[in-house]
Protein backbone atom coordinates (compact mmCIF):
# COMPACT_ATOMS: atom_id res chain seq x y z
CA UNK A 1 0.00 0.00 0.00
CA UNK A 2 1.58 3.26 -1.04
CA UNK A 3 0.49 6.83 -0.66
CA UNK A 4 0.62 10.07 -2.58
CA UNK A 5 2.30 12.83 -0.62
CA UNK A 6 0.74 15.98 -2.09
CA UNK A 7 2.02 19.47 -1.28
CA UNK A 8 0.29 22.62 -2.47
CA UNK A 9 2.97 24.83 -4.02
CA UNK A 10 0.88 27.41 -5.83
CA UNK A 11 -2.40 28.90 -4.71
CA UNK A 12 -5.58 28.58 -6.77
CA UNK A 13 -6.58 32.21 -6.25
CA UNK A 14 -8.15 33.55 -9.43
CA UNK A 15 -8.43 30.14 -11.03
CA UNK A 16 -11.78 28.54 -11.89
CA UNK A 17 -13.94 27.53 -8.94
CA UNK A 18 -13.41 23.87 -9.78
CA UNK A 19 -9.65 24.05 -9.04
CA UNK A 20 -10.38 25.43 -5.58
CA UNK A 21 -12.99 22.74 -5.01
CA UNK A 22 -10.59 19.97 -6.01
CA UNK A 23 -7.98 21.31 -3.59
CA UNK A 24 -10.63 21.41 -0.87
CA UNK A 25 -11.57 17.82 -1.67
CA UNK A 26 -7.93 16.80 -1.37
CA UNK A 27 -7.73 18.63 1.97
CA UNK A 28 -5.29 21.31 0.83
CA UNK A 29 -6.33 24.54 2.49
CA UNK A 30 -3.25 26.70 2.18
CA UNK A 31 0.08 26.85 0.40
CA UNK A 32 2.79 24.40 1.50
CA UNK A 33 0.16 22.23 3.18
CA UNK A 34 0.90 18.51 2.84
CA UNK A 35 -1.68 15.72 2.69
CA UNK A 36 -1.44 11.96 2.20
CA UNK A 37 -3.85 9.94 0.09
CA UNK A 38 -3.67 6.29 -0.84
CA UNK A 39 -2.80 5.60 -4.48
CA UNK A 40 -6.02 5.16 -6.45
CA UNK A 41 -7.38 6.25 -9.84
CA UNK A 42 -9.80 8.71 -8.24
CA UNK A 43 -7.03 10.51 -6.33
CA UNK A 44 -4.90 10.42 -9.49
CA UNK A 45 -7.70 12.16 -11.36
CA UNK A 46 -7.95 14.80 -8.66
CA UNK A 47 -4.20 15.41 -8.81
CA UNK A 48 -4.39 15.73 -12.59
CA UNK A 49 -6.94 18.53 -12.19
CA UNK A 50 -4.49 20.59 -10.15
CA UNK A 51 -1.17 19.28 -11.49
CA UNK A 52 0.17 22.82 -12.09
CA UNK A 53 -0.32 23.74 -8.44
CA UNK A 54 1.02 20.75 -6.51
CA UNK A 55 4.15 18.71 -5.91
CA UNK A 56 3.57 14.96 -5.66
CA UNK A 57 5.69 12.15 -4.26
CA UNK A 58 4.94 8.50 -3.71
CA UNK A 59 5.70 7.17 -0.23
CA UNK A 60 5.11 4.01 1.76
CA UNK A 61 3.89 5.52 5.02
CA UNK A 62 1.32 8.13 5.87
CA UNK A 63 2.82 10.76 8.15
CA UNK A 64 0.85 12.75 10.69
CA UNK A 65 0.72 16.52 10.59
CA UNK A 66 3.18 16.67 13.51
CA UNK A 67 5.66 14.38 11.75
CA UNK A 68 5.51 16.53 8.60
CA UNK A 69 6.13 19.59 10.77
CA UNK A 70 9.10 17.95 12.53
CA UNK A 71 10.71 17.25 9.14
CA UNK A 72 11.01 20.97 8.65
CA UNK A 73 12.29 21.70 12.15
CA UNK A 74 15.85 23.03 12.01
CA UNK A 75 18.77 21.50 13.89
CA UNK A 76 18.82 23.14 17.37
CA UNK A 77 22.64 23.42 17.31
CA UNK A 78 23.19 21.56 20.61
CA UNK A 79 22.67 18.13 22.08
CA UNK A 80 21.80 17.08 25.62
CA UNK A 81 24.60 15.14 27.34
CA UNK A 82 22.72 14.57 30.55
CA UNK A 83 19.35 15.64 31.85
CA UNK A 84 18.86 17.39 35.18
CA UNK A 85 17.05 14.39 36.62
CA UNK A 86 19.97 12.08 35.79
CA UNK A 87 22.45 14.51 37.31
CA UNK A 88 20.40 14.82 40.47
CA UNK A 89 20.11 11.06 40.87
CA UNK A 90 23.87 10.73 40.45
CA UNK A 91 24.50 13.37 43.12
CA UNK A 92 21.95 11.74 45.43
CA UNK A 93 23.72 8.39 45.06
CA UNK A 94 27.09 9.76 46.26
Amino acid at each position, binding site marked *: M*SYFRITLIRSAIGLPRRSTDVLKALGLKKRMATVFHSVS*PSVAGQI*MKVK*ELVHVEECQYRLTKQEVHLERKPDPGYYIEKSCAEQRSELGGQ
Partner: protein
Amino acid sequence: MFKSTQALFGGLLWCVSGPSTKVPIIRTQANIPSRITGRPRGVFPPPQKARQRKRLRSVDRVVDTVSAALERNGQTSKAVSRWFAEMPREEEMLPKDKYTLFDKKEKSYRKSIHKLPKWTRVSQRVNPPGF
Protein backbone atom coordinates in the same frame (compact mmCIF):
# COMPACT_ATOMS: atom_id res chain seq x y z
CA MET B 1 1.87 68.52 -12.31
CA PHE B 2 0.38 65.13 -12.85
CA LYS B 3 -2.62 65.36 -15.13
CA SER B 4 -4.83 62.34 -15.36
CA THR B 5 -5.15 62.20 -19.12
CA GLN B 6 -5.71 59.01 -21.04
CA ALA B 7 -2.19 59.11 -22.45
CA LEU B 8 -0.52 59.53 -19.06
CA PHE B 9 -2.58 56.75 -17.56
CA GLY B 10 -1.54 54.52 -20.40
CA GLY B 11 -4.43 52.21 -19.79
CA LEU B 12 -3.54 51.58 -16.16
CA LEU B 13 -6.11 51.81 -13.44
CA TRP B 14 -4.86 54.05 -10.66
CA CYS B 15 -5.76 54.50 -7.05
CA VAL B 16 -7.37 57.93 -7.09
CA SER B 17 -7.66 58.44 -3.34
CA GLY B 18 -4.67 60.79 -3.14
CA PRO B 19 -1.50 61.83 -4.96
CA SER B 20 0.75 59.78 -2.65
CA THR B 21 -1.06 56.52 -3.37
CA LYS B 22 -0.85 56.59 -7.14
CA VAL B 23 0.10 52.99 -7.69
CA PRO B 24 -1.21 50.74 -10.44
CA ILE B 25 -3.66 48.31 -8.91
CA ILE B 26 -4.51 46.25 -11.96
CA ARG B 27 -2.39 45.29 -14.94
CA THR B 28 -4.85 45.43 -17.81
CA GLN B 29 -4.59 43.48 -21.03
CA ALA B 30 -3.27 46.59 -22.80
CA ASN B 31 -0.33 46.89 -20.41
CA ILE B 32 1.13 43.43 -20.67
CA PRO B 33 4.53 43.87 -22.35
CA SER B 34 4.44 42.85 -26.01
CA ARG B 35 7.44 40.57 -25.55
CA ILE B 36 8.15 38.07 -22.84
CA THR B 37 11.88 38.79 -23.03
CA GLY B 38 11.77 42.54 -22.38
CA ARG B 39 13.85 45.24 -24.01
CA PRO B 40 16.72 46.07 -24.16
CA ARG B 41 17.83 42.50 -24.06
CA GLY B 42 20.54 41.75 -21.49
CA VAL B 43 23.55 39.55 -21.97
CA PHE B 44 21.95 36.74 -20.03
CA PRO B 45 19.04 34.69 -21.37
CA PRO B 46 15.75 35.99 -19.99
CA PRO B 47 14.75 34.15 -16.80
CA GLN B 48 11.03 34.22 -17.60
CA LYS B 49 11.55 31.67 -20.35
CA ALA B 50 13.72 29.50 -18.11
CA ARG B 51 11.00 29.57 -15.45
CA GLN B 52 8.42 28.63 -18.08
CA ARG B 53 10.48 25.55 -18.98
CA LYS B 54 10.89 24.76 -15.28
CA ARG B 55 7.10 24.88 -14.80
CA LEU B 56 6.54 22.64 -17.82
CA ARG B 57 9.01 20.12 -16.40
CA SER B 58 7.42 20.24 -12.96
CA VAL B 59 4.03 19.34 -14.48
CA ASP B 60 5.73 16.49 -16.38
CA ARG B 61 7.25 15.29 -13.13
CA VAL B 62 3.88 15.29 -11.32
CA VAL B 63 2.24 13.28 -14.12
CA ASP B 64 5.17 10.85 -14.22
CA THR B 65 4.99 10.29 -10.45
CA VAL B 66 1.24 9.70 -10.53
CA SER B 67 1.54 7.35 -13.49
CA ALA B 68 4.40 5.35 -11.95
CA ALA B 69 2.54 5.00 -8.64
CA LEU B 70 -0.61 3.76 -10.37
CA GLU B 71 1.37 1.33 -12.50
CA ARG B 72 3.03 -0.14 -9.43
CA ASN B 73 -0.42 -0.82 -7.98
CA GLY B 74 -1.68 -2.26 -11.27
CA GLN B 75 -4.17 0.55 -11.82
CA THR B 76 -4.80 3.01 -14.62
CA SER B 77 -6.36 6.44 -14.80
CA LYS B 78 -8.16 7.93 -17.77
CA ALA B 79 -6.83 11.44 -17.11
CA VAL B 80 -3.22 10.22 -16.98
CA SER B 81 -3.37 8.03 -20.08
CA ARG B 82 -5.10 10.82 -21.99
CA TRP B 83 -2.37 13.26 -20.96
CA PHE B 84 0.34 10.92 -22.25
CA ALA B 85 -1.58 10.34 -25.49
CA GLU B 86 -2.22 14.00 -26.24
CA MET B 87 0.39 16.18 -24.58
CA PRO B 88 4.05 16.50 -25.58
CA ARG B 89 6.73 16.55 -22.88
CA GLU B 90 8.81 19.66 -22.27
CA GLU B 91 11.84 18.28 -24.15
CA GLU B 92 9.66 17.23 -27.10
CA MET B 93 8.07 20.66 -27.50
CA LEU B 94 9.21 23.21 -30.05
CA PRO B 95 10.33 26.59 -28.67
CA LYS B 96 7.44 28.07 -30.66
CA ASP B 97 4.95 26.08 -28.60
CA LYS B 98 6.71 26.70 -25.29
CA TYR B 99 6.68 30.49 -25.51
CA THR B 100 3.82 31.34 -27.88
CA LEU B 101 0.28 30.21 -28.50
CA PHE B 102 -2.21 30.33 -31.33
CA ASP B 103 -4.41 33.40 -31.57
CA LYS B 104 -6.70 33.97 -34.53
CA LYS B 105 -6.74 37.74 -33.99
CA GLU B 106 -2.96 38.20 -34.36
CA LYS B 107 -1.43 38.96 -37.75
CA SER B 108 1.03 36.09 -37.43
CA TYR B 109 -1.54 33.82 -35.69
CA ARG B 110 0.78 33.57 -32.70
CA LYS B 111 0.98 35.61 -29.52
CA SER B 112 3.37 35.40 -26.62
CA ILE B 113 2.37 32.90 -23.93
CA HIS B 114 2.50 35.53 -21.17
CA LYS B 115 -0.63 37.11 -22.67
CA LEU B 116 -2.60 34.03 -21.65
CA PRO B 117 -4.52 34.76 -18.44
CA LYS B 118 -3.00 32.86 -15.46
CA TRP B 119 -0.31 31.58 -17.81
CA THR B 120 1.95 30.36 -15.00
CA ARG B 121 -0.75 28.08 -13.64
CA VAL B 122 -2.37 26.59 -16.74
CA SER B 123 -1.16 23.96 -19.19
CA GLN B 124 -1.04 25.27 -22.75
CA ARG B 125 1.02 22.90 -24.91
CA VAL B 126 -0.78 22.04 -28.14
CA ASN B 127 -2.07 23.99 -31.12
CA PRO B 128 -5.45 23.68 -32.81
CA PRO B 129 -5.40 21.20 -35.70
CA GLY B 130 -3.61 22.60 -38.71
CA PHE B 131 -1.63 25.24 -36.80
